[in-house]
């Protein structure tokens, strides 16, 4: 299954080298947004919100072919 993940803030470190802020590719099995977070190498503790195809969703939501997922961390003030 092919998905595109847009990564913001501290999550940007998980992006592919040639694509800052992006992880795009095949995921090896059916996943929820929560599975994807672990697959990318972090935990839900770092995630403030996720959206799939521009709609904010719970992390239990399943991913589908061609989905665009946005993952954002908590941001403070400054």
């Amino acid at each position, binding site marked *: 299954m092919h998905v595109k993940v847009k990564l913001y*803030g501290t999550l940007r470190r998980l992006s592919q080298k040639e694509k800052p802020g992006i992880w795009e590719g095949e995921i090896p099995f059916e996943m929820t947004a929560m599975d994807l977070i672990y697959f990318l190498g972090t935990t839900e503790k770092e995630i403030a*919100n996720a959206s799939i195809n521009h709609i904010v969703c719970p992390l239990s939501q399943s991913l589908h072919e061609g989905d665009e997922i946005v993952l954002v961390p*908590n941001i403070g003030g400054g």
Partner: protein
Amino acid sequence: MEQKYDGFHGRILRVDLSIQKVSVEEVDPRLFRIYFGGGALAMHYLLKEIPKGIDAFDPENRLVFMTSPLTGAKMSGQGRHTAAALSPLTGGLADSQCGGWWGAELKFAGYDGIIIHGKSKHLVNILIQDDKVKILDAEPLRGKTTGEVQEFLKEAYPSVRILQAGPAGENLVRYACVSADLKNFHGRGGLGAVMGSKNLRAIMVQGSNREIKIANPQGLKEIRDWFNKNLKTHPAISVHHELGTSKGIVPVSVSGLLPTYNFQDGSFKYAEEISGETMKKVLNGKTETCYACGVSCKRSVEGEKGKFKVTRQYGGPEYESIGLLGSNLGVNEITAVAALNERCNALGLDTISTGATISWAIECFERELLTEEDTEGVKLKWNDPETYMELLNDIAYRNGFGELLSQGSNGASQMTRRGTEKYAIHVKGQEPPNHEPRGKWGVALGYAVSNTGADHLQSAHDPWFTQLGDFSKECNWIDLEDLSPVGIIDPLPAEDISGAKVRLFVYLQQIWGFHDVLDWCIFTSVPEFRALSLYQLTDIVKHVTGWRTSLFELMKSGERWATLGRAFNYKHGFTSKDDTLPDRFFEPMREGTLKGHYVDREKLEEGIKMYYEMMGWNEQGKPTRGKLEELNIGWVWEEIKEL
């Protein structure tokens, strides 16, 4: 002049502009030990010297610039200084910290601070070159942009660092800012207008003693080396270096916390288009830094699109400016946002209050509470940056409709009435920055009780403290454990104002407060970023000053800062009734991820009451005599006891 004490000089420059007199005041070193510096030491003078009942534009208002013992030491995070005065925007305290290089330069010139009072008969600049201090005619500079003045002064004095008010300050726009070398700002509270009211355009500083004497250079070097080694691999700091504060636009919008359309919504459809990521690509975003700082998070942009062009002369927009000149005005293109930011900087306008005052006018126009008669023919609508660009000039020079807008949203709505007051989003007269409080109630409490009006830097923001931390992970910087040295161990929901949340807020306010009295940047340390720990911050103070101090004492300095500000405001007529939010934040959010969320008014009021109790203030929010004595500022009681 040889530095007298480790970390500081014990010398303050006094300038009376009415009689054009300059003098140097030796300061009892105990004052630095009690207050540390920054906002707290500035308030020591403001409280003692500003008479009750005066207007902010009265020559008797004091404008204080202050540093701390850490300013100018070779370490990331110390490149800030304070400006404080009676605010023309709120009628209470203006207390603002600014990054850059000016504060360090002032220390190099042999001074810890400057107190300015009186009013010059004509526009002047102050030139400080070590012991030589001159007051120079600046009338030929009247009306010129900050960039023009910077170029003119730099040609005559190439090595000076320059603080200046812009045309907006000269014209007493109530939210005029003070610019430091064009790219750093005392943005809030109208400090530029206080400069303008004194007929002071710029303060130039050049120092020859470029090494701050400190008690334990080796100790500081060890922390500096540790920080410099780790910041390169620290994910929060590395992304902050790459994108700056603007990295937050999309995450905050997705989380429903991005002020949009005059704080009606919390998510902006075009957040990506005005994000830091887009700015880097479209405007060739580069990084700049403050004095001796390795984080290097300042923006520098250039580019052109349509009628908008930006250059690197004024740096680039930060997160707050992008929100208030972008999403909150419905502007969906980053070059336009950057151009509006640049124009504000050139005119000396605070980007936050400027954007929020225009958004107030647009909403009122939409609701037919303002008409073309009021706007002098300007048709106001969202996402119309060309019109906003013209309005910026009108505000700064107080032409046409800009005359009304120059008063800020509260002032303008009070002059207009007709129900427009409801759409002026402000606390104590100051408009909120780019953080929607309906999804983080600690920020709501901070906005309400802040002594400077709505201010996002009263404490760290709630979402960071909603989960237990996990030190087993290398990359997890939302840890409560970082705050465990002060006894904060339990996660709390973001939309909560329980006793536990108020306690969290009080401790965080003390931590934020000691950052301000040390003029220390939150972007190097806990809890904004998990970099320097609370213990390391304490050690830095020890290494610089040689004082046998502690985290306890730093926390107390933050509490003292908050209480001094409260006493100052109390002296100038503020009471508990001023500690509240605009109605909009008590109403359900219109759109976005947090659609329908609101701040519970009763719970907030209960939280404010509890905050007073924890702070040792009475039900009117007035500091008690016992609390003042406990904070070693018992003298303050004489300033407020009769009120």
